[in-house]
């Protein structure tokens, strides 16, 4: 068994056993009429603070605070455990109070965005790797602009050299719009870029109108279109891989604020403050 697979099995098993033990303890304590909501509440607060510290660790790379990969593993499995503790604490149905309801849904959104991010960070990178050359996100707009300029220059050259407008017409009819368009937000989840395939198919259909020199230029055009496809794929993929964090992290901050209010209210009305 590979090392990473072995690690996954081991940590999954440990988390499952811990979750079972906690559920059993919760049931036993509940049967003994102990204040289990208070216990699970404090435990959940501790788990949430621990989970949130993963982001703080990223800001302190110069301190020997364990490797970020170890922190991510802790974050993932403690996250699963927190879901179980949350279910024990708040139940599986939305609560009645307004604050509690918002808190309940915020936790759900944080958990779901985290699960989505986990799935995305496992599912998308191999597809991006297979798409073509890996590129630095910030450089992609400039590279796309360069490719677009190359295409325009090539089409103009084709017209000047061959006195034929086939490729120029194709540019005006199809390519100008194709280059102006940016991939939609969830495009990476849709798999193959159907629009790119349509453009390539239309270019292939033009072949019978091209002379040998134009055919050579059409080959070069095909390469540029392939480069554009990869640029779009890399850009859209990397954008999605960054954007889910813009949902997960702000929601986490919101959750922590709501949790603070919830704890204050609970302690206040329990006459502990």
């Amino acid at each position: 068994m590979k090392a990473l697979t072995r690690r996954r099995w081991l940590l999954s098993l440990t988390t499952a056993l811990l979750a079972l033990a906690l559920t059993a303890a919760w049931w036993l304590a509940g049967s003994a009429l102990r204040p289990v909501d208070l216990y699970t509440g404090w435990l959940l607060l501790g788990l949430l603070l621990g989970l949130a510290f993963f982001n703080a660790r990223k800001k302190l790379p110069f301190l020997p605070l364990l490797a970020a990969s170890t922190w991510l593993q802790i974050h993932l499995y403690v996250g699963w455990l927190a879901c179980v503790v949350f279910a024990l604490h708040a139940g599986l149905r939305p609560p009645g109070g307004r604050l509690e309801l918002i808190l309940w849904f915020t936790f759900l959104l944080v958990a779901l965005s985290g699960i989505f991010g986990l799935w995305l960070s496992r599912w998308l990178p191999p597809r991006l790797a297979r798409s073509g050359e890996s590129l630095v996100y910030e450089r992609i707009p400039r590279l796309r602009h360069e490719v677009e300029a190359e295409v325009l220059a090539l089409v103009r050259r084709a017209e000047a050299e061959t006195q034929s407008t086939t490729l120029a017409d194709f540019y005006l009819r199809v390519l100008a719009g194709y280059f102006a368009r940016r991939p939609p937000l969830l495009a990476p989840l849709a798999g193959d870029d159907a629009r790119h395939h349509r453009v390539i198919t239309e270019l292939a259909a033009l072949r019978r109108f091209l002379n040998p020199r134009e055919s050579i230029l059409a080959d070069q055009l095909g390469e540029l279109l392939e480069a554009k496809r990869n640029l779009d794929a890399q850009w859209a993929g990397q954008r999605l891989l960054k954007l889910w964090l813009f949902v997960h992290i702000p929601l986490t901050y919101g959750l922590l604020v709501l949790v603070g209010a919830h704890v204050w209210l609970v302690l206040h009305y329990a006459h502990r403050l």
Partner: protein
Amino acid sequence: MAKSVSSAPVQTGSIPPQGVASRHAAPERWDKPFSADMQEVDVDLLLAHPLFVATDPRRFPASIPLRGILKNDARVRRFQRGEIIVRQGDYGHSAFVILDGAVRVLLKEPTAEQLGHRRQVRPSVWGSLARWWRRPRFAEQAGNRGSAAELELTRDGEARIFLQDVPGVLAPDRTALLGTGEMFGEIAALGRTPRTATIVADQETQMLEIRWQGLREIRKYSPEWKQQIDRLYRERSLRRHLAETALFWNLSDEVLGRIADATRFETFGEFDWHHAYHRGREAGERERLEQEPLMAREGDYPNGLLLVRSGFARVSSRYNHGERTESYLGKGEAFGLGELISGWQGKFRPLRHSLRALGYVDTLFIPTAVLEEHVFPRLTPAQLATLTKGLAPEPAAPPAAPEANSFLEFIVAQRFMNGRAAMLIDLDRCTRCDDCVRACAATHDNNPRFIRQGPESDGVMVASACMHCVDPVCMIGCPTGAIHREGLDGQVGINPDTCIGCSVCAQSCPYGTIQMVALHDAAGQPVVTEETGAPIRRATKCDLCIDQPSGPACVSACPHDALVRADLRSSESLNRWLHQ
């Protein structure tokens, strides 16, 4: 395969017509002389010097006359007392002959600071915190750059470094004296190995410095010089090198001496291989392979053992109309041993593989007769069996698929086997979050020391980060020694205090991992020279976070176990990571 848009401009045009082609004179060997100051009168003086009186100029070919070598490949330099001529560990491309005066070889190395190297920082949490607290507001601030007291720049911009505490360091009991007519630096120049000692001028001294190309030609055409250089090499280095080779362990000094006497020195490829590497990057694999000098041909019968002294060589075998890479050899590794032992046992076998120089390779050739007399009889049957294992053909076994070696082919083609700490990124795991880049910037003056982009193969990217090479060509020619090996693991570091921003290292690095960056003042404005107003720059590169207690920040910041700093000489650990 997807077209690369980042590494090369997109090829869109046909070949331009000849009428508009720009015409240049064909490049010639001495287009760039070693020193523009060498005049005919200096050459006359050198030819009349006792060093060259016995050298017969008629032995030199008309295209490479001795006079031309001295004018173009040599220069006369003057050193003041206490001036450092060469430093231990530096990579040089020239040898020195003392024309007048004396130098001292330091038997006890001075401190790194005395030699102009960076002060070693012990990694600590408090040190990291303090550096973070004092981090500059703007990247690469000039305030962080001091001026080393021992560094002087001459009027023509040449950097000179002087020892501090000259009487203490040059005490006779800590040094050895070399006088007029003696040579040093030839081993590092011809063998592309680090300087083995620091040498300092003992008095005002006039030296002849010959770059490696000239030294190679003089050695080739002058028997007297060849004899002297080879004698020095045998005396100073060869015997120790042989004694460190596993095959010759436990041999007596007498036997080692006989082997050393019979050993021939051979070099293959260009010393400045990085220039050819830049030219050949765009070439196809077949074309690149054909350009690599052949050291031994598959199918030939070996007449001696090839020991790699420095550099790398590709081991390949024919596969239909092409060649596939089986492995590569580095320093201390031997080629042809199994076939030689088999022949000694009476079963003569031709070489199973070809050997080609990857860049510059310096080898030792040990004739078969010497090995059969002194070495093979001492090997145990188990050792003999191990060394000849795999020689016999196995007709039943199907040949390995050539694509199975694609990552090895990639490493060899890109010359990445030079890397001791290459940054590999598993693209199947990398989420492009750039936490590695941010961590690098946070630990290095707000400016990351690498670019998360580079050649890819089999879903693995070799990012553009210093690999801390086995053969660090970037260190050749640094005028101040600012770029040097540091730390116990031999990381290549740059001392910002002695870097004069000449960019020799950045231009030499075949992998483009050294960046020249402009300095800024505390207000974020560029810092310029008083004389010309040109921006002051310095070289920056990955230092492998030598001052960080948790090691390279890029590795510890990667949440997905996607990034590793790998020694590409070790295929075992590399395979383990690739298949984790």
